[in-house]
């Protein structure tokens, strides 16, 4: 894997001057800073790297407490059934069993991550809605006994028809999975319109309508979920859990267990991969707590891999209809998208997921008019929720493939076309989102250059199939280069192709999951007489490196080494709230809070040291573990001495930092989903080979340029980018959370196909820096956005290689062979969904488009001063 970084600052990049050079060297420091970066921009190891690679890290399943019992859940074998009777007596009688419980033993409340979707029971009491729903639980001397005891619990079910697809659920309103929602088996229906789409289409030279399908897939973290609960003799409860959202788990535990939140403590253990799969509160966490209360013993529940497939909350399967108008030059006149999400059995984050299939789309390109209709449908499958990219990879796939098709019909280079229509910095989108900086044009230029796109792409090779349903722009289509551009190559069954796609993603959701005016992220920073600094923050490191960011940023501000910062994350009794590791929010939000706290400490220290050195506080520099005036650096005091001086002057040195995003939500119902402090941008080129005899795809290289604002640690950003590419490849080519005969077809690491290292191509990561005014030292997100362009870039490269349009992922070899066969028969070489459901969306909320309105450069944030 290779990587390089560039500074933005072209006209397409930030409106603000770029400071700092490569790796923080070689350029003048900005006026507000006294020195060039010492930590930011350096490829440092993560602070937990040593414990991880030596196996010292204690994950939740590594925790062993004295007298600990092991819990196990009994899960439903039915996809949809009424519970007629449930009896755990035989389980309780088994030697070694400490407790066996059913839903009747728990408070009769429902819970869920979103306040509007409180639809889950800890242990189902009346009805099960999927294979894998928990109905009872056992605590026993060991896991083997608990498992045997579960098999002794008698449950009598009355099976109901299981609805296993969007079509089935809509076709059977008489069978209700839930009693609430926006219609029979419709969890949520959304319709928003910004401007007049019909007028926009009338202005277009080319209007395309396409149907796409994106199969559901799962997070597949290496670590299976695990939790250890301990109800102490003092009546207080502690839960250690592999969770991305300890704060939300804290709230749910209090509700589901009917106990004061003040007596509940949640500690997020190091998470061995999350990707959104550990962002909900789960039955096993609550059950472990309850079993501990009953037995007076610590109780551990560790899920099996199969159970993780049932806990799921992964990528929604989404069927999409997309209509977009283009001018002859490639500009978008307007866009209308309809999405149908297969939500599974529960709400989870589904309302947000539904919005996300629509609201982020206008951020990437200039899209003056926009209409979005979306519906999430309940089915009897494990609930879907947030997976890396949350609701946006599906429409991104549709948009980028459709743009490729339009470029072909218009005879345009797809890279040039995208470059032309890239969103403008510091403007608003049609749906009132504020774009601050964007490095998309530079990202495109960089991947085009690095990949040798011009030499490899060389025109459209296959004539776009003309069909009555697709109005083809006569002139431009005829002028388009066709078969003549095909390279002369040795006759071979293996064909090479390149494809390009772009994307944008939010850097943290602008609103919390529950409505409140409090900080989204908080830290408490304490300076010690030893010269160490301790930072407490509720953020959860799921491998993305948030613990390291919490060390780097105070170290940068205070001029000390990251190793001198002790990070205490994610403990609801000790750490200020951070909402959780989701929506790519942590680096920005806890980073801003950490900087604020460090600046407060710095101010106090500077005042004390200034008195000692008899200089003005503003003249002091914090660098290399010392504080002093640059002109008299030999008189500089050590940081530890500076802390002593400050503590003597001010008392205990402990400072809070708080962050909440700027209040920029659109003033319309639904405007709360989509706003973000800033958006990251990505461009990607894929080069691959398609075997025309087998349909197999071999990836050779991926060039990916990501506008990360600023790479606080380029190593971590590259790691996130490569991980995103890997995950995108899996979704594009093989992963599918699919069902047969009412059950998950392959709930195992062997049979759920996810790429191995052997499937990974060479990834060339290019980091583009735009120094966003909203981010800590200009940083934006990197954990999710780089996934988005990968599946469509692969689909577009397959088309370039063999002329087959795959409007559906995962793209199996069979699909490519089917497309080739159609081409041989003279038919349109397209594989993908043929129809959309019969479904009437509600009347859209019509709002004026805010497209192109100027955005203020720096927004006012709560808690800023």
């Amino acid at each position, binding site marked *: 894997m290779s990587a390089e970084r560039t500074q933005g600052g072209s006209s397409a990049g930030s409106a603000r001057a770029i400071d700092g050079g490569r790796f923080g060297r070689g350029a003048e420091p900005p006026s507000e800073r006294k020195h060039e970066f010492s930590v930011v921009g350096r490829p440092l190891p993560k602070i937990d790297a040593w414990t991880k690679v030596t196996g010292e890290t204690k994950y939740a399943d590594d925790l062993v407490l004295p007298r600990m019992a092991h819990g196990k859940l009994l899960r439903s074998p039915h996809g949809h059934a009424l519970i007629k009777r449930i009896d755990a007596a035989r389980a309780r009688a088994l030697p070694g069993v400490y407790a066996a419980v059913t839903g009747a033993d728990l408070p009769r409340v429902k819970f869920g991550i979103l306040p509007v979707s409180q639809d889950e029971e800890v242990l189902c009491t009346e009805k099960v809605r999927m294979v894998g729903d928990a109905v009872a639980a056992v605590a026993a001397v060991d896991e083997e006994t608990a498992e045997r005891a579960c098999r002794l619990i008698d449950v009598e079910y009355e099976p109901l028809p299981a609805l296993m697809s969007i079509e089935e659920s809509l076709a059977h309103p008489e069978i209700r999975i839930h009693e609430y929602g926006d219609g029979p088996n419709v969890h949520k229906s959304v319709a928003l319109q910004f401007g007049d789409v019909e007028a926009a289409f009338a202005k277009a030279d080319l209007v395309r309508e396409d149907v796409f399908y994106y199969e559901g897939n799962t997070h597949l973290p290496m670590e299976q979920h695990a939790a250890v609960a301990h109800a102490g003799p003092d009546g207080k409860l502690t839960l250690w859990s592999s969770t991305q959202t300890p704060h939300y788990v804290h709230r749910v535990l209090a509700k589901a267990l009917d106990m004061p939140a003040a007596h509940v403590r949640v500690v997020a253990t190091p998470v061995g991969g999350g990707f959104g799969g550990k962002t909900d509160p789960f039955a096993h966490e609550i059950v472990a707590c309850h079993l501990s209360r009953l037995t007076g013993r610590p109780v551990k529940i560790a899920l099996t891999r199969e159970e993780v497939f049932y806990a799921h909350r992964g990528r929604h399967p989404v069927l999409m209809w997309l209509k977009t108008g283009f001018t002859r030059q490639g500009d978008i006149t307007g866009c209308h998208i309809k999405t149908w999400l297969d939500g599974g059995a529960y709400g989870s984050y589904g309302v947000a997921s539904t919005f996300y299939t629509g609201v982020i789309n206008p951020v990437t390109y200039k899209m003056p008019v926009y209409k979005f209709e979306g519906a999430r449908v309940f089915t009897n499958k494990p609930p879907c929720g947030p997976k890396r990219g949350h609701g946006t990879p599906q429409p991104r796939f549709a948009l980028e493939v459709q743009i490729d098709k339009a470029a072909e019909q218009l005879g345009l280079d797809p890279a040039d076309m995208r470059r032309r229509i890239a969103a403008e910095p510091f403007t608003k989108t049609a749906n009132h989102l504020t774009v601050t900086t964007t490095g998309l044009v530079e990202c495109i230029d960089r991947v085009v250059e690095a990949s040798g796109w011009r030499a490899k792409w060389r025109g459209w090779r296959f004539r776009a199939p003309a069909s009555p349903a697709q109005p083809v722009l006569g002139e431009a289509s005829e002028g388009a280069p066709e078969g003549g551009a095909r390279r002369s190559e040795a006759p071979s069954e293996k064909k090479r192709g390149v494809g390009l796609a772009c994307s944008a993603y939010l850097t943290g959701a602008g609103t919390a999951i529950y409505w409140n005016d409090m900080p989204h992220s908080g830290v408490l920073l304490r300076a010690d007489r030893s010269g160490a600094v301790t930072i407490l923050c509720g953020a959860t490191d799921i491998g993305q490196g948030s613990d390291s960011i919490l060390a780097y940023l105070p170290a940068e501000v205070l001029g000390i080494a990251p190793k001198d910062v002790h990070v205490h994350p994610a403990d609801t009794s000790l750490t200020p709230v951070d909402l959780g590791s989701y929506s790519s929010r942590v680096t920005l939000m806890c980073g801003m809070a950490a900087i604020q706290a460090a600046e407060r400490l710095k101010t106090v220290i500077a005042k004390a040291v200034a008195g000692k050195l008899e200089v003005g506080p503003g003249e002091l520099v914090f660098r290399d573990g010392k504080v002093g005036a640059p002109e008299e650096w030999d008189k500089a005091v050590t940081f530890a001495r500076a802390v002593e001086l400050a503590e003597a002057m001010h008392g205990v040195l402990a400072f809070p930092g708080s962050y909440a995003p700027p209040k920029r939500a659109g003033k319309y119902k639904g405007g709360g989903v989509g706003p973000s402090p800033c958006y990251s941008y990505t461009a990607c080129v894929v080069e691959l080979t398609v075997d025309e005899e*087998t349909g197999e795809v071999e990836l050779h290289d991926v060039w990916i340029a990501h506008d990360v604002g600023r790479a606080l640690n380029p190593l971590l950003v590259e790691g996130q980018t490569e991980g995103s590419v890997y995950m995108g490849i899996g979704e594009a080519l093989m992963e599918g959370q699919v069902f047969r*005969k009412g059950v998950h077809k392959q*709930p195992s690491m062997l*049979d759920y196909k996810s790429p191995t290292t052997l499937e990974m191509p060479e990834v060339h990561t290019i980091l583009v820096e735009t120094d966003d005014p909203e981010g800590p030292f200009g940083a934006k997100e990197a954990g999710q956005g780089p996934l988005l362009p990968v599946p469509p870039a692969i689909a577009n490269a397959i088309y370039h290689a063999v002329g087959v349009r795959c409007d559906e992922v995962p793209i199996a*070899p069979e699909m490519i062979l089917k497309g080739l066969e159609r081409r041989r028969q003279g038919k349109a070489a397209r594989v993908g969904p043929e129809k959309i459901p019969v479904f009437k969306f509600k009347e859209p909320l019509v709002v004026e488009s805010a497209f192109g309105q100027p955005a203020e450069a720096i927004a006012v944030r709560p808690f800023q001063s």
Partner: protein
Amino acid sequence: MMRLPPFTYLAPRTLGDAATALAEHGRDAMVVAGGTDLYPNMKRLQFEPKVLVGLRGIRDLRGVRGSAREGLTIGAGTTLSAVAGHPEIAARYPALATAAGLVSSPQLRNMGTLGGNVCVDTRCNYYNQSHEWRKAVGFCMKKDGDICLVAPASPRCWAVSSSDTAPVLWSLGARVRLVAASGERTVEVSALYQDDGIAYLAKQPGEILTEILLPPADGWKSAYLKLRRRGSFDFPVLGVAVALRLEGARVGEARIVLGAVASTPRPADVAAAALVGERLTPELIARVADLAAGPSKPLDNTDFTHPYRKKMTRVFVARALRALAGLDGSGRPVEEVA
């Protein structure tokens, strides 16, 4: 996590002790070598032995003896890594080294043995699931149930022979030695298997597979191609083993054996016969590939669709033959072919 049910583990030091222990415990006992197939199956309650007879402590079961000129004898307990990396096997029985090197992942090849792969349980994606999953879908006849979920009207089980090495050993004309407390016998690999997903081995429960005997390699060329979703880890969903003995430019003898398209490795004898006495021209290869696809009758119980696996049979047979004929002359490396 999934836990192993309790069992008694016996660790005999000699083959005789192992055979005696197996005879003594009858149907309650199973043998275990690398355990890469058996232990996961035990966790899922596909196998429920009370006694395991461990073979790892028996030195005689490991190692490779003899020469390619006279024929090699491979101990059944030799790891797949050792087979794949053995210089004489790689040079003279290349299809076997290839097949052994394509089983699962490096870690499992370091534990898994050749004998284990020859005897590996048949697979089906209705069967290789946890007890709870199988209960949810309704148990199948291979374990705990009455019907075949792939072909519900069928009286038999259609689980798939999923060994990489079995079709290769068959194509090479190998034999295996079976040892029981009551005596021993040597049988052709082709006689070791039967086309039934449950009774897939024509082996008595008390018999231990101890050795694989390869005939002299002189004049033979061999190749193995494997279809699977990923470059590692996955079981075959189609295996093509081809062995040829050339007489000048013409084929003297030929065997084509297909893996993972039935409950047994399946010979494509008509196709192989069409090669004998002929030159390996592109036209002949195309005709033989069509013939070889005939016996390929996969069902919908593995990864990939079964029509695709059927279609790929022709492609893979043609590719194996082209490679052996040296016809793949475009300068690209022929990755999967030994």
